[in-house]
């Protein structure tokens, strides 16, 4: 076969050019450290790299979620420990106070100490985290969990009703705290002063201790509390809602909220009390807000006093969280010893509640540790897969680079040698 001079030149050039392309490619790989510089080089791997990257960043986010959760749970744990210590002190004081040899001034001295403990516990329950959130307020994190009623000196829960959870793995969420309602307020009680559900908040228990020590052994009134969140009020602008409040088994006060809109629970309380006053029932029945809930109470105290809600029309029952005919009677005054015995039992119940919360926090912290090490392992495994997929094998690449360099040099040398061969040199 014959070959043209121009084509033989072209062939040598093609050979050198393809060597140079390969060299440039290797050089790019060596300088970037990556096997793949564009998806076309390995389309499947390119998509896999995106997936792996996503898994890694996502899991790293879970790790930082875990760190945030751990910080908050540790804070809650120390708050609960402080609350525990307060309880022990309160128990000691109660046992001390039950001693009949104490005189009233001794008891008053103890009372002042108990009052201090009450304030201290309120401080603990209103602990704030670094973001300024009240840790026991749930999803209403900007509002203190417990607020003091200036008139009665009692504390009522006013936080949210939902505990926030954080995502610590694709399928796992962990609550980053506990509701003050569950920890401090909703505690079983056998005391006659317990609410209609048999619950007494630890603040009320301490208040009862303080009151008992101050020798005010009061009879309690009947009170019913709706269990719905009414912080932002109710709207009856276009609906009818009426109900009756029956005090002491006979005094029936009709309440009509039709056509009115309330933007918070206090305006509703004010309106109901105004209607009670207008109807001349203010001496028998009273409405008040208990945190975010509405409460109806009889003004009279003692076993004969009671309060009932019935004859409702409209949706007030469900909206406020009452049952039709729901009734609660007051209780007579207890003796000093009986009151303190109940206090002692309830303090134990409160301790139990704190212990439950602490062990639940501990379990969650444990879960965080487990998940964290799982996530860590996952990240390491995924990173090594990613590295296998995208990182360059340097030893291989360098030896290839040397091979290509040699090949290019050989091509260049043969080119110049062949170019020297020409018949014209001999003419």
């Amino acid at each position, binding site marked *: 076969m014959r*070959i043209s001079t121009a084509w033989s030149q072209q062939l040598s050039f093609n050979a050198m050019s393809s060597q140079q392309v390969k060299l440039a490619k290797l050089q790019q790989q060596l300088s970037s450290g990556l096997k793949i510089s564009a998806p076309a080089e390995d389309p499947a791997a390119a998509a896999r790299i995106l997936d792996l990257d996503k898994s890694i960043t996502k899991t790293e*986010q879970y790790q930082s979620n875990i760190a945030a959760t751990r910080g908050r749970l540790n804070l809650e744990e120390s708050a609960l420990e402080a609350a525990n210590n307060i309880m022990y002190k309160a128990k000691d004081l109660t046992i001390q106070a039950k001693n009949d040899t104490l005189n009233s001034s001794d008891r008053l001295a103890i009372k002042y100490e108990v009052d201090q403990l009450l304030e201290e516990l309120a401080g603990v329950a209103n602990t704030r985290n670094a973001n300024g959130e009240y840790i026991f307020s749930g999803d209403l994190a900007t509002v203190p969990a417990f607020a003091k009623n200036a008139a009665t000196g009692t504390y009522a829960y006013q936080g949210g009703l939902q505990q926030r959870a954080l995502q610590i793995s694709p399928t796992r969420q962990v609550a980053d705290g506990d509701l003050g309602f569950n920890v401090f307020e909703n505690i079983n009680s056998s005391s006659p002063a317990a609410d209609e559900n048999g619950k007494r908040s630890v603040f009320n228990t301490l208040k009862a201790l303080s009151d008992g020590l101050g020798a005010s052994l009061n009879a309690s009134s009947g009170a019913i509390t709706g269990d719905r969140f009414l912080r932002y009020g109710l709207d009856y602008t276009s609906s009818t809602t009426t109900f009756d409040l029956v005090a002491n088994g006979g005094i029936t006060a009709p309440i009509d909220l039709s056509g009115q809109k309330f933007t918070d629970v206090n305006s509703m309380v004010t309106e109901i009390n105004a209607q009670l006053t207008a109807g001349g029932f203010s001496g028998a029945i009273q409405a008040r807000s208990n945190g975010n809930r509405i409460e109806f109470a009889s003004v009279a105290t003692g076993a004969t006093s009671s309060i009932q809600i019935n004859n409702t029309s409209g949706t007030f029952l469900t909206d406020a969280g009452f049952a039709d005919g729901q009734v609660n009677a007051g209780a007579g005054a207890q003796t000093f010893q009986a009151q303190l015995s109940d206090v002692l039992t309830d303090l134990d119940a409160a301790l139990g509640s704190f212990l439950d919360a602490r062990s639940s926090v501990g379990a969650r912290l444990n879960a965080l540790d487990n998940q964290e090490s799982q996530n860590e392992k996952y990240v390491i495994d995924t990173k090594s897969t990613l590295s296998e997929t995208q990182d360059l094998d340097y030893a291989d690449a360098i030896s290839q680079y040397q091979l290509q360099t040699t090949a290019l040099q050989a091509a260049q040398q043969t080119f110049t040698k062949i170019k020297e061969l020409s018949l014209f040199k001999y003419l």
Partner: protein
Amino acid sequence: MSGLLATSLSGLMAAQRSLETVQHNISNVNTEGYSRQRVQQSTMTPRYTGDGYIGQGVQVTNITRSYDQFINKQLNSSLSAFGDADRYHQLSTRVDNIMADPSTGMAPAMNRFFNALSGVADDPTSIPSRQVLLSEAETLTQNFNALSSQFEEIRTQNNSDIGTRVNGINSLAKSIANINVQLTSAIGRSGGAILPNDLLDQQDALFSKLAEIVNVSVVPQQDGSSSVFIGNGQTLVLGGSSAEFTAFQSEYDPNRLEIGLKTTNGVINVTSQISGGSLAGSLSFRDEVLDPAQQQLGMVAAGLAMEVNALHEQGFDLSGTAGLALFNFSGDEEIPVIKNPLNTGNAIVTANFQDVNVNPSAAGNLDFSDFKLEYVGGTAYTLTRVRDNQVINLTATDTMSPMGKFALSFASTQPANIDVSALPGIDITVDLSGGQTISVGDEFLTRPTFNAAQKIGVNITDPKKIAAATNIEIDPATKQPVLDGLNNPVIIKGPMPGDNSNALKLAALGNKLGMLGGSTSFNGAYGQIVSGVGGLTRASELSSSAQQTLLNQAKESREGLAGVNLDEEAANLLKFQQAYQASAQSISIARSLFDTLIGAVR
């Protein structure tokens, strides 16, 4: 005696012509498209004598070029195939590189966006973490916009490229027609016996240049000219006249160029007939790589906006008001609807993305294609998926207000063998309420995904407006939602700053398999674009290098036949030099013979 001189002289002349031709070959060793030439010699008519026929020397009969029509045809078709594959490869590599660039990479931006949502879920009361989310959302949409504009830029360049190539075809066609005229006269001069080699080479080179741009068929004519046809018989060059190509804007999309042939009856659209050459490479790159990638990117953007907005609108912000859409689409209309200029009716057709809260699979039904709506009559419409011409039937119902505004829904009877069972994630309405009319055959083109990535933006600037809360009232003891009389969860009508439930749900969207019929996540859908473009680029790289090999083989066989080899020419130089010297020597012998004779009679 005089015969002796004349015979030597003819050898001298023949050797001289041959030497000239060798020198012509040597001079043109690097001329593209040059075919080496050879002098054809033959003996002169011998003289009859009583002794027999006496040879009268040599004569030059013709100068021919080494040429093989088959090899040239092979070369041209290889040039077309390579031009097509190479152009496609060059262009798709650009898209591929854009997708690979981590700074424009959508995937990290999407990851960061969902991580920022997770950050808001960690700290719903914190304004800084909400601000981070807004900036990440901004970055994400900007990345969508930037990537889309890069696609647009490639489209613009590709368009101007197509224009340049069309102009190239036109000027080549003109030159070929010119040469045709010269050829006809040159060949006519010798009655077809002697061919103008260099002129033919020039025309062959023009054919090759044309073949690089577009695949053509060349038909040699009796008079020596060549006719050039394109596609299935559209004439480009006929004798001394040439037709003109033009690139014109598509009726639905000014950014889309079609190829037309100017005729006396107007412009004929020949886009679908263009095959081979870099022009076809540009066109098929646009249809197979650029448009699908842009549509798919838009699909991811639209799907993300639909899913995130639906959840965000269900949530409540820091001040307790219901969430707004987090993402929006700039422009007058959410989805562009373009009317066919030939429509006789004046109905107003609008299209919107479906609400995921109403149709949970809306984002999954999105399709990376334009859709053509056509009125069939009565309440019947058809919707054609442009990317594969699949048709679905739609029914119009007058359920919207005001009267005469029709909502189109998936009809109960459908053509067989379709792979969809719902509208492609969009709602279409036809508004005839203001007395507008629609005629059978009226067409509208809707482009749900094409511009979505270009148009997506963030709707919210105030970090407090991020709806991290669901405001669902939870019973603290049972931890279950409180239900109202209709068994729906009760919504608290006020700010719940610490509620992160909606942010959690939004962050979980990052893992939701909501795209492409519920088969993949947003990231996965984006990954499919990357691997799709990567796959096409890789395939084009392979086919381009295969075509390169074939082209080299074709070039090699042409060069083997027609190329100039300097060593060969050097040998020929020697050969003809010797022949020349020998003929000159025989003249000198003739002279000495003559001198001998003169001396004998002196």
